[in-house]
């Protein structure tokens, strides 16, 4: 395993005491694999990604274990973490316009990790940056390197971010909603680019997304998060094909299906996702779930296995009828 996360807990301080944002996340990822992390707002998906990068906000308390290449990252000093970040682990953010420095040329920004981690000279790093920009298939890499971020389109900026992330040959790339701000045709190209890079370099990819369909098309494994809890996890085909959790199922049925008759009633989930401090002692989905029983309100469902690598947290998983 390249990365093994066990019982990861992230608590953030608030005026009403610590709030648990991620509650006991356990998962692992091998070299070359891709993992999708799906959830709605407040599900804890972004905080999980940030915790892996050692980028949780100041004051956050991280518990549990994150082992990356055999090394424990929880409790690692900021200095040691900085040595890993951008080198062995890299991150791609949702909005490259805010993640890139608006006042520095794109080439210099792509070159920076190479100077920092590889000890390259500025000149050599800049040449390498142009090669990287070409590698992510920017149409005119020389021009892109000289440009400032505002001079590139959204898709071009995201390609530049990817070039910056892959420069040092990371073993793990974490992409947080990398295509949410982009048009679908650009999204498809960026996702295909990430997939191509993964295939050629054997890096592992964690793709954080609110869109189950994006993950369905581009990941081997999936985690479905809700209210800070991993509700269901396993191979994508199994989780989406035979979900063992009413929340996953509800997500699948809430989307309009292509080709269905117009105006057919969509299955709705009453209410809206809970705020962190509203998650009680029971299942976070209790109350919105049509299968809610008494036990769901009082006790967290433990993870239960359903075949190879398929895990669901639901008291009533056995009562869930198979999908047609």
């Amino acid at each position, binding site marked *: 395993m390249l990365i093994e996360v066990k019982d990861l807990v992230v608590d953030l301080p608030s005026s009403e005491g610590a709030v648990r944002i991620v509650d006991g996340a356990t998962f692992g990822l091998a070299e070359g694999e891709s993992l999708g992390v799906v959830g*709605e*707002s407040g599900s804890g998906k972004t905080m999980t990604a940030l915790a892996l990068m050692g980028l949780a906000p100041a004051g956050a308390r991280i518990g549990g274990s994150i082992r990356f290449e055999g090394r424990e990252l929880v409790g690692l000093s900021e200095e040691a973490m900085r040595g890993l970040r951008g080198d062995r682990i890299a991150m791609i953010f949702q909005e490259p316009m805010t993640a890139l420095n608006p006042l520095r040329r794109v080439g210099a920004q792509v070159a920076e990790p190479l100077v920092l981690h590889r000890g390259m000279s500025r000149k050599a790093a800049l040449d390498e940056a142009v090669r990287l920009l070409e590698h992510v*298939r920017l*149409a005119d890499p020389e021009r892109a390197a000289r440009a400032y971020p505002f001079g590139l389109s*959204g898709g071009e900026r995201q390609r530049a971010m990817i070039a910056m992330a892959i420069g040092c040959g990371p073993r793990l790339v974490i992409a947080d909603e990398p295509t949410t701000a982009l*048009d*679908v*045709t*650009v*999204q*498809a*190209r960026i*996702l*295909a*680019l990430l*997939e191509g890079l993964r295939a050629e370099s054997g890096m592992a990819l964690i793709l954080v997304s*609110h*869109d*189950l*369909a*994006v993950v*369905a*098309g581009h990941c081997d494994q999936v985690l479905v998060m809700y209210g800070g809890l991993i509700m269901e996890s396993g191979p*994508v*085909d199994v989780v*989406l*094909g035979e979900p063992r959790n009413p929340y996953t199922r*509800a*997500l*699948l049925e*809430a*989307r*309009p*299906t*292509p*080709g*269905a008759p*117009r*105006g057919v*009633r*969509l*299955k*709705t*989930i009453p*209410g*809206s*996702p809970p705020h962190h401090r509203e998650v009680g002692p029971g299942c976070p989905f209790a109350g*919105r779930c049509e299968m809610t029983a008494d036990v769901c309100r009082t006790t967290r469902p433990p993870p239960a296995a359903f075949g190879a690598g398929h895990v669901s947290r639901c008291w009533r998983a056995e009562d869930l009828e198979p999908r047609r």
Partner: protein
Amino acid sequence: MSAGERPLLEIVDVRKVYRLPRPRPFAPHPVRVALHGVSLSVIPGRSFGIVGESGSGKTTLARIALALDRPDSGVVRLEGASLFDLPRRELRALRAHMQLIFQDPYGSLDPRMRVERIVAEPLAALGGVSRAERRDRVAQSLQAVGLRAADAAKYPHEFSGGQRQRIAIARALITRPKLVVADEPVSALDVSVQAQALNLMSDLVREAGVTFLLISHDLGVVAHICETTAVMYRGRIVEIGPTDAVFAAPAHPYTRELVDATPRLDLAARTAAPADRAPAAHARAGGCPYAPRCATAEPRCLAEAPTLTDIAGEGRRAACHFPLGLDRKARR
């Protein structure tokens, strides 16, 4: 579109050019053509979808349809009345028949106003509504979107994202408009909340006689609500027709690209990775604007711009010299 039905909204050959800031003092303003002569008509009771990427002109078109922006040329008629030839007063009265739903349910509701005031705002365009009637209409409107009349006394922050979008829809409904323009109405909502808003929109079509002009990048959302869809690319309609036929068997290569790029849940039909080609050539003036990106472009496409022409019957039209799949009939 059968003849004889009077369109609710008619847009005829609308052009819009934006002047950009001068690059240096005294230089001429560069211009950007946002709409190159767009025409469409919306039949009452048949919601109309517009899809396309950012910069395709879909939002500009919506603003012009609502008379929030003036076209440089062309005509916009709502129930036969030409919006830009009307005196200001009559335009104001006509405005009550068309409303707008914004994308962002957080940014479009004034946090300092109570829901009652927010929802009642469009009534000002009607004029002469008594306080009692105003209160009744707010209550009706809130109930129509599944909120309670008592919610009128609350402030927006007391509601969830999905409920706020309902408040925005309630505001749009209060004048009992015939046409509601919705610009990305559900894209800021969580998936589990989107379905509530989409169901509400289909109910309004069926029960309240509302016709939507729905703008979205999400083909699934458009297919769910709209009978007719126009696909826009760089300020032009490149394909138009019955939604199901257009998405099931696109005639224009750009529509095909959009359909193929849309992520799908059914594992059998996973997104095919698109060919990652650099543009083969720059669009030439006079040529098809899509030709540089097109997988099936021929020399003629670079030289001569195609016009929107009838294909395959069924009210379908496409602006392409070599429309796809003409030999096959549109299935389903």
